[in-house]
C-alpha cells in the first residue's frame, strides 16, 4: 500500500495536472497542495499555461477541413506521376537537405550523373538567368529554329515545352558545353521576372524518378527519360518548381522524343 501521506513528488504534481494521477493518490496530492502553497501556485501556473495553449490553438480543430486534404484525391494522386514525384521531392527535401535521398544511394555506388548534370544545370542557370540583354542565343520568337538547331547539335529530337499555361513565356535557348558533349538550356520567364530553365543533355543512364536538389537561392529537379537527362531549375520554391517540372514533364511525356536514328 502506498502511504497516503508520503511526500508528493514533482512527477505526481504533473500527473495531477494532466489527469494521470493514480486514483489512490489524488487525495494525497490534494492534501499536499492545501498545505504547500508554493506547489499549489506551480500547479496553478501549469494549468494556466495549458489553458493559454488551448485558447490559442484549440479552435483550429473546428475549422472546416480544406479540400486539399480530401483523402480520395490524395490517394488518386498517389498513383499518378505527379504525387510520386511530389513525394520524392518531399522526401528528398525532408531527408536530404542539400542533395536528395536518391542521390545519396546513387553517389555511393558511382560518381553520379545526378550530381554532374544538376551541378552543370544550376551553374548555367545561375549564370544566365541574371542576363538582361543576352540571356539566350536564339529567342523564343524563333521557336522552330531553336528546336531544330538544338536538336541537331544534341543529335536528339528535343521537346521544348510550352509553359504558358503555367504563366511562363519561352525566352529562348542556348547551346552549352556539357560533360559528355553538347547540352542545351532553354529559359522561361514569369510575370514578375522570375526565370526557370530546362537543361537537356544526352546520357547513357537509365530512366529515373525525379530527384530534387537545392543550392542557395536555386533548386533543381532532375530526371532521365529515353536517354536524355532533364534538369528544371528555378527559384528555391519547392511547390512552384514542382508544378513547372510537372508541366514540362507532362508535355514531353505526351510525345516522347527520340534519339535520332
Amino acid at each position, binding site marked *: 500500500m502506498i502511504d497516503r501521506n508520503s511526500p508528493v513528488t514533482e512527477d505526481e504534481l504533473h500527473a495531477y495536472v*494532466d489527469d494521470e494521477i493514480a486514483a489512490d493518490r489524488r487525495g494525497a496530492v490534494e492534501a499536499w497542495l492545501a498545505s504547500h502553497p508554493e506547489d499549489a501556485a506551480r500547479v496553478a501556473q501549469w494549468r494556466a*499555461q495549458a489553458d493559454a495553449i488551448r485558447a490559442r490553438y484549440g479552435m483550429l480543430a473546428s475549422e472546416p*477541413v480544406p479540400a486539399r486534404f480530401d*483523402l480520395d484525391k490524395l*490517394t488518386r494522386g498517389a498513383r499518378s506521376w505527379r504525387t510520386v514525384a511530389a513525394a520524392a521531392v518531399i522526401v528528398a527535401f525532408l531527408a536530404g537537405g542539400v542533395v536528395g535521398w536518391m542521390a545519396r544511394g546513387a553517389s555511393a555506388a558511382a560518381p553520379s550523373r545526378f550530381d554532374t548534370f544538376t551541378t552543370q544545370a544550376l551553374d548555367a542557370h545561375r549564370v544566365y538567368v541574371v542576363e538582361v540583354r543576352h540571356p539566350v542565343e536564339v529567342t523564343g520568337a524563333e521557336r522552330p529554329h531553336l528546336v531544330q538547331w538544338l536538336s541537331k547539335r544534341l543529335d536528339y529530337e528535343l521537346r521544348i515545352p510550352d509553359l504558358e499555361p503555367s504563366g511562363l513565356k519561352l525566352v529562348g535557348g542556348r547551346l552549352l558545353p556539357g560533360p559528355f558533349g553538347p547540352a542545351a538550356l532553354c529559359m522561361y520567364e514569369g510575370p514578375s521576372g522570375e526565370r526557370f530553365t530546362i537543361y537537356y543533355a544526352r546520357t547513357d543512364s537509365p530512366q529515373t524518378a525525379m530527384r530534387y536538389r537545392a543550392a542557395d537561392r536555386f533548386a533543381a529537379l532532375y530526371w532521365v527519360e529515353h536517354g536524355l537527362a532533364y534538369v528544371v531549375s528555378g527559384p528555391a520554391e519547392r511547390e512552384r518548381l514542382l508544378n513547372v517540372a510537372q508541366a514540362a514533364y507532362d508535355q514531353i511525356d505526351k510525345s516522347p522524343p527520340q534519339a535520332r536514328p
Partner: protein
Amino acid sequence: MGGFRQGIESAIPALRRYARALTRNVELADDLVQDTLVRALRSEHLFHGGDIRSWLYTILTNLNRNRLRALARRPALQAIDDNDAPETAGPEAGARDIERALASLVEDQRTALLLVVLEGLTYREVAEVQGVPIGTVMSRLARARMQIKAYLDGERPALRRIK
C-alpha cells in the same frame, strides 16, 4: 479498410491543430499534415492496428523532426519572430506570448507538452510517439513547463538559438 480511412479522416482537424502549434506557421503546418496523410495512406500495410491517432501523431512528429534537421544543416535564413516588438495589451498579446513561449522550447519538449495539453494524449501514448520511456516524457514536460514560466516571467534567453 473503411475503418482505416475513416480513422485518418476524422483525425485531420486534430492533426492540423497540432501541426499549427508545433510549427506556428499555417502553410508549413498544412504541408506537414498533407505529407502525413499521404504517407499514412501509402503505409496502410504498416499499420498493425492500435490507435490510429497516435500513429498519425507519430508520423507527423517524425516528419517535423526531419524537417528541422534538414533546416539545421542548411545555412538558410529563417524568419525569426520580432522579439523586440513592443508588447501590446489585451488577449492578442496573451496569444502571442504563449506562442513565443512555445517557440522558445527545445523541439522534444514542445512536442511532449503539446501532445499532452493540446491533444490530450496520455503519457504512455506520448512515450510511444516520441519513442522514449515515460520518465523521459515526464522530464520533458517538467522542463517545458519550467521554461515557459521563465519565459513568461520575462527571463527571455539573452541569446536566441538560431535554428
